[in-house]
């Protein structure tokens, strides 16, 4: 039985009981418990089922490395699957459930897989389910998908909030054990700004469990005082419940703080993601104990020795009444001693080393604990719970010497330094034979922007296990690190300690050495993913010799614990099977995050309305009130049309177009890109950017211009206005403003840095209103514009005016074919002007129109639209825009590309108008087919539709398209197959459907 032991448990407050639920059962724990310790206190050792064989599994560890203790937490939309019980703090009202079983945790049908395990070795699925072909999709895959996956899915929208914090410090210290704390002190005393983060809610780490002497006093007292001292310094910030999850290029670090997970109904954000720029990083992330590989080492009740000790010391929970300790190093003796001192029985310490342990062995023996050196566990008995073990020699094949009954096994296979953060951004590792572990190679550290080391490691993360070494190295390393920052201190002297001398560990990767296949096929390496010793051996046998191959073939280390317990053990088995040494086989790559972090925290505040905030023109709310159907354009929303009561979208567009053609329409054109180009070389610069000449543009005039990419493809168009001698205002498409602006900057900064030119994106500084239609001039005159008669403001000219005391600029340009003015006004007056214009609604029959009417009208006029007629493969020549390619200029972006062979190929598809022979609208995106098929069996195509609309003006379908030899084939009919097996016939016509002579725009 696992149970609570009164009087023990430094972290729990037994006067504060809490109730919580596990699989519907009401249970009790104490304040300070983790979910894991509380479950254990209730004798709930069985906590889940494994991934593949659905074997019953209990807790193995007590921290972030726990592979089995995964539960579902919370309810409804607040449900979280795969939460680690060992890192979940208990609170009143916590609801949890176990995972991956059916119908229940205690009785799981999936357990049959266990009996079939000999048929399901590593990679079995690559070798089977091959025939018959459809069976994979329809039978096998669905079964595998159902039985795989751990937790239940989350549901719906997450009710919680998440946030991002940014920190800039001198020294970031990851880990709040004694090395981290002491390092923080040394750094802080030098005056450095220090941020110390610790993943658990408590500082002190492993030492507070083992309680060595320090400065002649208890370590607990030392930790408390040091913490208090640090908290009192204003150059130190300490964050508990905060995991260092990743270190990226140049030491950019990521930490994950859990703010509200430890209480029900706490306010505020749930998680906070810290993005930290530290001049130096020190990781003091400790070490993780490794399991030992003996048969049935996964039966609930087999636990890491340090975890057994942790549950006892910190939470007052015993895993069993009779615990056998099995080890290859001295540290596990501490567990035996603690258990014995707590009044529990320890029938035996099994030490695989023939010479056994040092001082600790003596202490244990003095307590009356039996110790067997050179021995091993042959097999563990029990299914849902340890019942006993068979003792054997460590050498040999596991012949049973003695049966020992027990209800728990505490195992220790040595310690692996937590080197994840060190490795994330390139720090190299060395295999330390003495320690049987990889430790940081201090010669090859991760480097920062200056190419020098940016990360150092202290404490057991560095492979130091004795307290004397830990503090001494921490002191030296921290002094070195702050020296890099130009700082020093002698105010944090090294405390005096005396650690207990330990005998060295011996490598035991298999227990016993010569374990039979029968034993090995029950010996687990990766508990969560169900990978056994025989699986790794099979991988090696089949040629999966690289660690990465073996890992992928067996899935070792790919579970949610990312192999924190299993990687080194698996690697050792692999190298043994390959008859190579461990370092020459090497490790797999360490990938962030160190522990899983919520997707919510990664997304941060940017969700729903704040996900890509909408850019709004000053008239946005007006549009919204007047029935705007919105269309996203870049990050803007623009009215597609304004739908009136009882009207369909189609009818609305029809009404808007008709109004523009017959009366007056107004458009909010504020989203149009506006880039101000200034400086004495502006003309020269724009001559390079645009295909046509801009430098000779007269003051007060506008010119339509084209911009091509380096490869010659048309990417943007718009009207450029010459504002004064040295400045031009370049209008771009609404979606293109940012790109064109950055393209201009790129050229200026990388190629033409000697040009005196300044570009500013002023798109949001000005609102722009287009007034379109026969009566447009009268509307403007009514507003008070006096200089806009045909003579003083000809087509493609602009003029400054004052309207109700507001400065405006009026451009006479047209994208609709009608007489049209664009009035530009500072944005804060945009809505004012818009309202003033619409106050004349009755008098002139003014109708606001949206983007769709705009598109229809330009198509009726045969004007191209970037993104419709162009798609990144179309050159101006294809669109009949050769006139806009200056012949006088030596160069412009795209000119050389236009000289490439294929650009002048006569077969290129060219712009034409298309009219279906029956007046219908040709389907969007349709292709015209030619004769037969090409050499790869595709239908030959000879053109395509680029824009297609019903024209309210002409009362029939019209389209623009690109057709091979199109302009030479006016009057011919071509075929457009549709997706419904019918064919639309269309006549090739001129692309200008409406007012070809341009009378209307000149009225």
């Amino acid at each position, binding site marked *: 039985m696992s149970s609570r032991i009164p009087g023990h448990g430094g972290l729990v407050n037994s006067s504060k009981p809490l109730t919580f639920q596990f699989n519907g059962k009401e249970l009790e724990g104490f304040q300070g418990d983790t979910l894991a310790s509380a479950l254990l206190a209730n004798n709930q050792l069985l906590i889940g089922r494994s991934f593949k064989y659905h074997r019953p599994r209990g807790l193995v560890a007590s921290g972030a490395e726990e592979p089995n203790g995964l539960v579902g937490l919370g309810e409804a939309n607040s449900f979280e699957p795969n939460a680690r019980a060992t890192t979940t703090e208990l609170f009143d009202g916590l609801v949890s459930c176990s995972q991956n079983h059916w119908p229940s945790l205690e009785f799981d049908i999936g357990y049959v897989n266990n009996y079939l395990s000999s048929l399901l070795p590593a990679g079995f699925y690559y070798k089977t389910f091959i025939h018959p072909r459809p069976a994979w999709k329809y039978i096998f895959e669905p079964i595998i998908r159902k039985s795989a996956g751990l937790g239940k899915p989350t549901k719906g929208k997450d009710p919680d909030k998440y946030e991002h914090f940014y920190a800039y410090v001198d020294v970031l210290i990851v880990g709040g054990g004694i090395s981290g704390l002491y390092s923080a002190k040394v750094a802080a005393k030098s005056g450095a700004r220090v941020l110390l983060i610790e993943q658990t809610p408590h500082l002190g780490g492993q030492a507070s469990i083992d309680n060595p002497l320090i400065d002649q006093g208890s370590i607990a007292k030392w930790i408390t005082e040091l913490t208090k001292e640090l908290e009192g310094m204003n150059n130190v910030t300490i964050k508990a419940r905060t995991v260092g999850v990743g270190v990226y290029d140049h030491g950019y670090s990521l930490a994950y703080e859990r703010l509200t997970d430890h209480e029900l109904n706490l306010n505020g954000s749930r998680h906070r993601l810290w993005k930290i720029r530290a001049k130096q990083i020190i990781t003091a992330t400790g070490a993780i104990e490794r399991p030992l590989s003996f048969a049935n080492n996964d039966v609930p009740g087999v636990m890491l020795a340090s975890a057994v000790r942790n549950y006892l010391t910190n939470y007052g929970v015993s895993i069993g009444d009779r615990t056998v300790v099995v080890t290859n190093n001295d540290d596990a003796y501490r567990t035996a001693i603690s258990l014995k001192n707590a009044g529990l029985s320890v029938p035996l310490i099994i030490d695989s080393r023939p010479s056994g342990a040092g001082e600790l062995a003596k202490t244990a023996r003095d307590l009356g604990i039996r110790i067997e050196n050179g021995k091993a566990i042959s097999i563990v008995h029990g299914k849902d719970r340890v019942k006993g073990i068979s003792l054997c020699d460590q050498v040999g094949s596991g012949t049973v010497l003695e049966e020992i009954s027990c209800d728990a096994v505490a195992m220790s296979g040595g310690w692996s330094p937590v080197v994840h953060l060190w490795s994330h951004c390139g720090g190299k590792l060395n295999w330390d034979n003495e320690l049987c572990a990889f430790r940081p190679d201090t010669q090859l550290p991760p480097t920062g922007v200056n190419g020098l080391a940016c990360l150092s490691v202290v404490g057991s993360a560095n492979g130091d296990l004795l307290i004397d070494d830990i503090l001494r190295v921490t002191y030296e390393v921290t002094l070195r690190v702050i020296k890099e920052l130009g700082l020093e201190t002698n105010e944090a002297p090294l405390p005096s300690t005396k650690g207990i001398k330990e005998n060295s560990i011996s490598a035991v990767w298999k227990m016993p050495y010569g374990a039979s296949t029968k034993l090995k096929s029950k010996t687990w390496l990766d508990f969560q993913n169900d990978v056994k010793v025989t699986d790794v051996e099979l991988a090696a046998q089949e040629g999966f010799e690289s660690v990465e191959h073996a890992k992928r073939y067996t899935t070792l280390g790919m579970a949610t614990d990312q192999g924190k317990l299993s990687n080194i053990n698996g690697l050792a088995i692999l190298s043994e099977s390959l008859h190579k040494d461990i370092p020459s086989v090497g490790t797999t790559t360490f990938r962030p995050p160190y522990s899983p972090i919520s997707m919510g925290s990664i997304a941060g505040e940017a969700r729903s309305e704040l*996900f890509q905030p909408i850019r709004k023109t000053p008239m946005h709310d007006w549009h919204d009130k007047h029935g705007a159907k919105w269309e996203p354009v870049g990050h803007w929303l623009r009215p597609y049309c304004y739908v009136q009561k009882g009207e369909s979208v189609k009818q609305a567009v029809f009404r808007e177009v008709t109004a523009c053609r017959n009366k007056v329409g107004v458009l909010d054109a504020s989203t149009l890109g506006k880039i101000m180009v200034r400086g004495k070389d502006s003309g020269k610069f724009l001559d390079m950017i645009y295909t046509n000449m801009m430098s000779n543009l007269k003051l007060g005039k506008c010119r339509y211009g084209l911009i091509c990419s380096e490869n010659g493809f048309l990417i943007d168009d718009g009207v450029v206005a010459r504002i004064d001698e040295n400045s031009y205002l370049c209008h771009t498409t609404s979606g293109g403003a940012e790109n064109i602006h950055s393209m201009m900057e790129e050229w200026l900064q990388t190629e033409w840095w000697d040009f005196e030119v300044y570009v500013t994106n002023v798109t949001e500084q000005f609102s722009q209103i287009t007034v379109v239609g026969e009566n447009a001039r009268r509307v403007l005159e009514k507003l008070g514009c006096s200089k806009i008669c045909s003579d003083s403001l000809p087509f493609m000219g602009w003029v400054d005016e004052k309207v109700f005391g507001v400065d405006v600029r009026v451009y006479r340009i047209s994208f609709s074919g009608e007489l049209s003015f664009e009035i530009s006004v500072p944005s804060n007056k945009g809505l004012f002007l818009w309202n003033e214009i619409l106050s004349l609604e009755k008098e002139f029959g003014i109708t606001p129109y949206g983007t769709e009417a705009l598109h229809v009208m330009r198509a009726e006029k045969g004007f191209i639209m970037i993104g419709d007629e162009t798609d*990144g493969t179309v050159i101006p020549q294809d669109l009949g825009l050769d006139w806009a390619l200056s012949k006088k200029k030596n160069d412009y972006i795209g000119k050389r590309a236009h000289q490439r062979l294929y650009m002048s190929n006569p077969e290129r598809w060219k712009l034409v108008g298309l009219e279906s022979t029956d007046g219908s609208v040709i389907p969007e995106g349709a292709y015209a087919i030619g004769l037969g098929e090409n050499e790869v069996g595709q239908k030959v195509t000879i053109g395509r539709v680029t824009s297609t609309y019903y024209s309210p003006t002409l009362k029939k379908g019209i389209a623009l398209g690109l057709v091979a030899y199109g302009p030479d084939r006016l009057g011919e009919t071509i075929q457009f197959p549709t997706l419904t097996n019918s064919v639309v016939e269309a006549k090739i016509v001129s692309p200008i459907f409406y007012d070809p002579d341009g009378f209307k725009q000149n009225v």
Partner: protein
Amino acid sequence: MKRYSSFAIVREAFRNHSGWKKAWESPIPKKKYDVVIVGAGGHGLATAYYLGKNHGITNVAVLEKGWLGGGNTGRNTTIIRSNYLQDPSAAIYEKSRSLYENLSQDLNYNLMFSPRGVMMLAQTEHEVRGYKRTAMANALQGVPTEYISPEKVKELCPIINISGPRYPVLGALWQARGGTARHDAVAWGYARKCSDMGMHILQQKEVTSIISKNGRIGGVATTGGDILCDKLCIVVAGHSGALAEMGGFRLPLESVALQALVSEPIKPVMDVVVMANTVHGYMSQSDKGEMVIGGGADGYNNYTQRGSFHHIEETVRSLVETFPMISRLKMLRQWGGIVDMTGDRSPIISKTPLENCFINCGWGTGGFKAIPGSGWATAEMVASGEAGPLASPFSLNRFKEGRFIDESVAAGVAH
């Protein structure tokens, strides 16, 4: 070679699986081969396989600097589709997709090809037009695709948020026979067959220089000594620029990091692959239960396989918006691969200025789906010395002539 089957497994179970042979041999290199392929990724191995299978050329070595399949082939998010817009792309990707249909049987290796359907969401009017156009093009190219309504999107993938607020789903391009496959298995399956045909797969052999004489290929120098050959085919993805430099020519390529991530595994919630290109993210659920997520490539060139966190953040942000339920799942692991991007986002399968030296590269962010088809076409080119109809549009010459095959037209991302 020992055939894989359920019966073989049962038989082996009785002798503790001691009878399984090596999936591929680690032979001692010969002095000279007819064809040497540099790079044992999917494309290199598939090229070797079809050289043997379609053209009877088996005196072949595939040289790999690390472990086979360890490049992008073992790092990608395994989306397989062929609903490309341009004719040459649709041809080679559809060839590839159709080869995938029978590849498990062909290789006697379960690649777990799972044609569960791929949808590309249209979230702007512009995308709606683009995908309708693609559907039209696909119909003429013999690639079955469909433009579907938002309701159908929701039905096929109930966890999608189709109502915005920012980008409501307006429709989607749906390819029912698109899907995913197990990436490692593709490399391993090809490697096993190649080895079985007597080809040499030589791992831990990095090519360090190219040996040529009078503009003609002679062989390569490797970290394990010189190896001579009549023909050389370079298939090294992100490292193509480095190999080209050894061969004395340049390529129109940039190498950038592309990243991906997975969540912790959960029970099945999503049976299709969804790509949301407006917001730059895509997601599917692996057979193991992990949500497999990817997005755009880093904005700067580099060779480290790490990548920055910024892109992860951008991708996850987009997907939390598209699939609100993932907010409470946890990211388990992120990683990156170096992808080789051409200017028109289409691959290069071509002869090079060096005689008898061929190149296959430029698959960028989307070449996993192309492995069988590309291997097929590349083998044809290497065997005959000239590119066949599938490969010829992808020659290096197209950059000189301006005959680009631009796929970025239809989709911002091309996985």
